């Protein structure tokens, strides 16, 4: 079980947090750089020879491309995102899942990893159960989920809490480095959903609380470089 959960992170699309790149906080409409050489990336636009921010966040220059990393904001579902959700209703064809986004998500009965009798759906997933699932499609009408994949399925025991969804890439770290560090140091199982919900289960309550504090520490320090080292220091200090 533990390893499977690990792999769920690796499937997740990650933003690169290069520590050398110049970063600064910008507000919407603020000029990030001036010059015809630069290319506007995500969250920015060109106005004459200027690159202007279209969102509130951290502007980063990566070579010629200027992009903006949002640090606040609601979750915007994308295909293949691994998310954590809570079952809110059972219909004849599947489950309705609250994933903390604008649209409700639907998990069709065929997308569960094994065959489930339509009359016994609540024995597999009941209302109020928490699952980690992958987003299969995002259409105008809504979101479809799947449970077919490594590390997906019902989350039993442990607890969930929420962080700001835009901070998720930070918590995961490069190729899962940050979350793996926290897992190692606390001995907890952790699943990070792209929608900002985080599930933690540990051997005892103390380590669970410690893992949660560690995650919140990372989520708070958005503008700090070399966080993994700071995290290690934090663990040293708290022991």
């Amino acid at each position, binding site marked *: 079980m533990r390893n499977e959960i690990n792999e769920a992170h690796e499937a997740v699309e990650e933003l690169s947090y290069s520590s050398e790149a110049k970063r600064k*906080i910008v*507000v*919407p*409409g*603020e*000029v990030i750089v001036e010059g015809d050489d630069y290319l506007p990336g995500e*969250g920015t636009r060109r106005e004459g020879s200027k690159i*202007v921010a*279209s*969102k*509130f*966040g*951290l502007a980063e220059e990566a070579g010629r491309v200027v992009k903006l990393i*949002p*640090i*606040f*904001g*609601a979750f*915007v579902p994308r295909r293949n995102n691994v998310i954590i959700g809570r079952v809110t209703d059972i219909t004849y064809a599947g489950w309705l899942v609250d994933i903390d986004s*604008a*649209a*409700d998500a639907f998990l069709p009965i065929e997308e569960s990893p094994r065959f489930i009798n339509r009359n016994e759906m609540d024995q597999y997933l009941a209302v109020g159960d928490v699952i980690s699932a992958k987003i299969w499609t995002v259409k*105008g009408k809504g979101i479809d989920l799947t449970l077919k994949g490594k590390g997906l399925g019902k989350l039993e025991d442990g607890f969930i809490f929420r962080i700001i969804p*835009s901070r998720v890439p930070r918590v995961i770290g490069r190729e899962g480095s940050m979350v793996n560090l926290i897992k190692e140091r606390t001995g907890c199982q952790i699943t990070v959903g792209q929608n900002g919900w985080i599930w933690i289960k540990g051997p005892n309550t103390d380590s669970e609380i410690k893992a949660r504090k560690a995650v919140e520490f990372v989520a*708070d320090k*958005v*503008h700090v470089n070399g966080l993994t080292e700071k995290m290690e220091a934090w663990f040293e200090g708290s022991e």
Partner: protein
Amino acid sequence: MAKEHKRPDGRKLNELRKMIAKVGIIPNADGSAMFAFGDTVAIAAVYGPRQLHPQHMRNSSTGILRCNYDLLSFSVYDRKRPGPSRRSQEISRVTEWALLPAIDLSQFPNTVVDVQIYILQADAGTRTAGINAASMALAHAGIPMKDLICSVALGKNDQTLITDLTKEEEDYKEGEGATDFAIAKLANNDEFSLMQMDGKIQPEKVKEVLEMANEACKTIYEAQKKALKEVVENPQGGTEA
């Protein structure tokens, strides 16, 4: 020429009241901010983008913005009866129109972004303080925006143009009386998104008013920018202070 105009609180003619701007004051909201012009205090909370009910209001090509402005019952001297009024509905709508040119919700079809603006303390210029707070709260909520919106009320006491009127100045009775001119504009642009006027003014003075608005908006923009940057550097400061 009339004798030199003196403002009751001793400010210069183009001087704003002391501003306070704070972001991240409501932990449960997706974005929130507080903005104060002297004794006028406004808070704004942004929720969304989220699913829109009733369904018939949904727009399948873009998200919509829904604003709600209200005075709290203790914000004025005579208790304000709680609940929507003709005035608050008008200001809600006007605020919505003032904010719309700056935001882009095309990424979030069928959804709504709700903006709640409450006035904690009223001393004239509440709609402008509300717009300033709402603009910061929208940015804080991570909504794609072209620009921030800055808003200020200008006015005229008899023949003298002044910036950021207080309630006392709004009730000025001598000569031509008081004129109130509420303005909102895109911070880095010359586009105005709100212009309301109440009272008498000469056409040639309107241009002067707009120039004063430009000046004042620059100061307001700096305050907004500073508050937004502060919340990143010191995330606890806003929510726990």
